[in-house]
């Protein structure tokens, strides 16, 4: 069961990663008309607002699944990492745990400031919150990926 949940956690994280990355690029470097024809131009031209609800739902679900499988990690993976003296991956996961928790705290603000995309006075705040959330998602994804490579599914 925990393997199934771990795979679901990973798949949701991939979807979240794609959505938040597109939105961050669009928020920080919106496309001009000339550049919209290229691959990067089209990435910059995505309607950033359309990702908001999906990102809130995906972040919440990914965090929830992570929280459900966390006890398995605590019992079967972290102890092994400590025994193998793999301090950096262990510390990276500790940071992931706290960053994800902090991300949950900024989610209401993120949702609120994207709710009024026409409000120019919120532009910087929107972009900063999106970038912060994107960093947390990328950190969580990469650390989870590396730890899974170290420990595997332990089947």
């Amino acid at each position, binding site marked *: 069961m925990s393997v199934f949940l771990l795979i679901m956690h990973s798949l949701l994280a991939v979807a979240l990663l794609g959505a938040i990355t597109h939105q961050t690029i669009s928020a920080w470097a919106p496309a001009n008309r000339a550049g919209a024809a290229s691959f990067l131009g089209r990435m910059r031209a995505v309607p950033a607002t359309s990702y908001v609800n999906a990102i809130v739902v995906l972040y919440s679900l990914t965090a929830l699944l992570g929280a459900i499988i966390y006890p398995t990690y605590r019992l079967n993976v972290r102890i092994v990492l400590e025994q193998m003296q793999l*301090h950096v991956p262990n510390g990276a996961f*500790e940071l992931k745990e706290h960053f994800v928790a902090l991300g949950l705290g900024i989610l209401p603000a993120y949702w609120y400031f994207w709710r009024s995309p026409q409000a120019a006075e919120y532009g*910087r705040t929107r972009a900063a919150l999106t970038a912060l959330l994107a960093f947390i998602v990328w950190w969580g994804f990469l650390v989870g990926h590396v730890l899974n490579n170290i420990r595997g599914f332990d089947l």
Partner: protein
Amino acid sequence: MTGRTSPRFVIVFAAAYAVLYVVAVEYNLALFTYHPATEEFHFLVQPASDGPAMYWYGWMATSGLSAFTIAALISWLSSRSINRLWLGCSWSVPLAVMFVFVYILRRYFIR
């Protein structure tokens, strides 16, 4: 929640949650503890007995409930200073707390 009060609520919630979370972690102020080996929940902090104790859920609960209460109270206030609350607090305070965690956990990376 009206459009006028909502920004205050979410800004204060984001900032208060981040600060309270790091305080909860540092002083281990978990609202509840989970013991994964025995699959038992306990109210407040219960030290590890049979296997490790997990406080992460409890830290989030402590900071989430406290930040909600603070944000709700502040969003009821209507003084000018509160109305002029800087929007950037919603991201700068959590960002600062992330750096605090990097500092707290530096022993994992510097040996």
